């Protein structure tokens, strides 16, 4: 059975591209969230094998969403999607429990490598 994924990003553009990259590699994107609050809710509903998490989102940001999800499920596998220049935020996300990170602009091969590390 293929791994299930929840894709969290406030931009439809980014969600579409990440979903395409993962979908084409055989993953099953079961849900999308555009705010941190939605991410936490959908994680509880869907129990995905993997979450991709943007850092800057309206409402609740990605780092707080990681904290909430990990509180609920310490084994959650969360991959941060960051932009250049966000090192301090990525470190904070890792401290909060994120398992790995990729940096925009995304190269499909790098995204898939990171996903394998997180799931492996």
């Amino acid at each position, binding site marked *: 059975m293929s791994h299930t994924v929840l894709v969290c990003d*406030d*931009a*439809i*553009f*980014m969600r*579409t*591209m990440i979903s395409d*990259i993962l979908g084409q590699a055989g993953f099953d994107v079961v849900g999308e969230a555009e705010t941190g609050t939605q991410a936490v809710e959908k994680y509880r509903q869907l129990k995905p094998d993997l979450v991709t998490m943007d850092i*800057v*989102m*309206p409402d609740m940001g990605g780092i707080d969403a990681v904290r909430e999800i990990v509180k609920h499920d310490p084994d959650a596998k969360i991959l941060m999607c*960051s*932009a*250049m*220049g*966000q*090192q*301090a935020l*990525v*470190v*904070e996300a*890792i*401290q909060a429990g994120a*398992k*790995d*990170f990729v*940096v*925009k*602009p*995304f*190269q*499909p091969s790098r995204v898939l490598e990171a996903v394998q590390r997180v799931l492996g």
Partner: protein
Amino acid sequence: MDLSQYAELFLAESREHLSACNQLLLEWERNPAAAEPVGGLFRAVHTIKGMAATMGYGRIADLAHRLENLLDNLRRGGTAPADETIQLLFRATDALEKAVGLAVAGREREVDLAILADIDRAAQQSKPAPQPSALARHFTESAEVPEPQGLPTALAASVASGAGRIFQVTIRPEAPLKCARAMLIVKKAQ
């Protein structure tokens, strides 16, 4: 990966964010003491930066990045912006809108970046007093590769007695965010 299939989506979503920027700027102009507009502006410009970089539009990503720096300073500074700053932000939003249109039409080279000097100057002037980040206390990043050094005596002794292990880790020079990568490695080793 064929990026052209995402160009329309990029254009539509960028325009949506730019129109939100104009709304937020009008709101900020009416009420410069309000704290919300700058947060919304920062997020919108940040999103455009990420999308543009992904599309390979380097000039737009650069413009958005420098604008994001200015907005971040204004956000952290927390003081009401001068009218001059608001007008600059309106002009920067226009410049970004033009740049987005040109890039999607395959004419990114024509993007006019003259406004960058003004943006950088405003960013410099609005820079809040520096505070040592939590990150800086943990790690320092150096351009030079340090010479391998002998192990401290206590560590060497614990390794010799079998109580410890040594990992040698190499991070590729081109790897982004090396401190964050180092932190993951330390976490994994524990």
